[in-house]
């Protein structure tokens, strides 16, 4: 019973804080997220040190999709986890402001376009869909470059979807009930 009440109170607090934060972006961060985010020097410093390495590792995994274990899916998830780590260290709201929604949308859709573009380009050059060998006529080692590009685009899509899902879940469900009655 008591836990139930507590949960409801927390939900109410979130609901009250959500619109406030949206209305006044200059509002104090401490008030907007009560009790969730703790500013810790240790965590912030660690994340600042580790993030570049993890992002590099993510790219390393993505580039390895062609001939060794690895690939866009695994690398994309690791790249997405960098943003989640930043959010845990610096607060979700400030991370959301730092990483524009447009970037996430562009990564997700752009990844699809690059993938499909490489596939359709092969058709335009007279091959089958995704027949990388068709690009060999244009420049050397085109098969490898094309596969790497496809892996990178998959990585971009996966990372963008992981980040987008994280932000959506973190935003709670208040915004989800904006049914348009028309």
């Amino acid at each position, binding site marked *: 019973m008591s836990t139930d009440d507590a949960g409801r109170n927390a939900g109410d607090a979130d609901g009250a804080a959500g619109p406030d934060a949206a209305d006044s972006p200059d509002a104090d961060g401490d008030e907007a997220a009560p009790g969730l985010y703790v500013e810790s020097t240790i965590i912030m410093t660690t994340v600042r040190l580790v993030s570049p390495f993890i992002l590099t590792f993510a790219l390393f995994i993505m580039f390895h999709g062609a001939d060794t274990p690895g690939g866009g899916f695994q690398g994309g998830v690791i790249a997405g986890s960098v943003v989640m780590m930043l959010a845990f260290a610096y607060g979700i709201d400030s991370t959301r402001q730092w990483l524009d*929604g*447009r970037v996430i*949308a*562009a990564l*997700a*859709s752009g990844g*699809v*376009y690059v993938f*499909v573009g490489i*596939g*359709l380009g092969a*058709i335009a050059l007279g*091959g*089958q*869909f*995704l*027949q*990388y*060998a068709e690009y060999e006529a244009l420049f050397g080692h085109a098969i490898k470059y094309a596969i790497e590009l496809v892996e990178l685009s998959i990585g971009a899509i996966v990372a963008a979807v992981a980040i987008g899902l994280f932000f959506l879940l973190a935003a709670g469900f208040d915004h989800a*009930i904006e*049914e*348009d*009655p*028309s």
Partner: protein
Amino acid sequence: MIEHLIVLLVVLPILGAAVPPLASLRYDRVGWAVATATTLGHAAFAAALAWTVWTDGTVRYAVGGFAAPYGIELVADGLTILLVALVSAVSLGVLAYARHAGPHANTFYSQFLLLVAGLSGMTVTGDVFNLYVFLEITGLAAYGLVASGPGARSAVAALKYLVIGTIGASLYLLGVGYALAATGTLNMADLSVKLAEVGYDSTLVLTAFGLIVAGLTVKVALFPLHTWQPDAYADSLDSVSAFISALVSTVSAYALARVLFSVFTVDFLEAVPTARWALVGVACVSIVAGSGLAVAQSDVRRMLAYSSVSQFGLVIAGFAIATPLAVVGATVHLVGHAVMKGGLFAVTGIIERRTGATTVGGYAGMGGRVPVAAGVFTLLALAMVGVPPAIGFVGKWYIVLGAVDAGVWPVVVVLLASTLLTLAYFARLGERLYFAEPTITSGSTAATDGGESVSTGMIVTVVVAAVLAVALTAAVPVIDQLIDQTVFELIRQ
């Protein structure tokens, strides 16, 4: 260009699905326009592909230029183009309905197009692992669409669908793993040869069959594994339930038929009678249990959902009998059911918007209030029961003839019994609609939901569905010939 049509059928909706997220940065309601333009393109490609297959026979396409047993192969034969055409047509119908009925969010149409891509992929693929990938794309898009409804009920339904659907897909993947271990190949045509070489009594092959069929049965929603389906259909938005009820289980049933005829072949069913009888048994139980549960429902959409459990039992029974007549019957019923059930779900949406009625009791006296919708509902319901000129009759008739031919008497008995039960629950609704005193007065409904309006597009969609439910009977010879060209080759092998 013409030989690339088959891959473009899948690529185009994916390309379209990537547009709304970018577009929504600037515009609010472009999702519908993007989806419609993409689906029109999809329909054009489907028509061109259908023409190619009709004139030149089966189309094969090696993705990436990797030759067939090693690379992913896409195959379009008569059965494929039938399903591709169905996917295109139903998508356009649902879009016409959703233009006004909503939802209007851009992201909804992204998921819509992803679902079209997944369904098209499942239809054209000639590779069992590729089929799994598209099964997952279809599933994920469908879970998202179910969850797009308002309120917690649709979220719970989507979660249930997600959990059970993922188990089904995993079972299928496990089965594919066994088949790969037995044969070392994933290509459907190659598998059919290699499985025979391994021997149909091999434990690996039998396990693969069991797991693959069990996985797909979850997706088709046959009786003991149907539990995701009534919630997913009844608790989602009307646009979504019309779309999903018409296509998702239908294409899964097609995939099951594809696995039966193109991968395991009829020889396997002949060699392992237990497998065939198990499938016929599950189908028969599903027919009876689905009809029985449908009779017991008071919510109309839930009743329609259980009716689908029963009808898919019928389709799978037809495929499992595997004589030419029964397969034609099952295919006709598969296509007919999609049109009829999609139309029925759409028309329940119209009736609910106009009057607020959702239950059998609430439908009382609505025949006078919403004459067109009630008329369409009655017509589609009669078609579903199997009243002669309608497509529902032809499908059942062929399946019964096939069952009698093959001497599978339990199917005949069950089918006739289920027809009576179908008549029972639809007749109850018809009686309510036209001969009962209204329980919902017009005054009280003006207040509910702010009196939602119904557009001409929505009405036209359901009327077209009703007309098709009868007119498709004329197309049965075409379907017969399409299957004659392709599936019978497989059956005779």
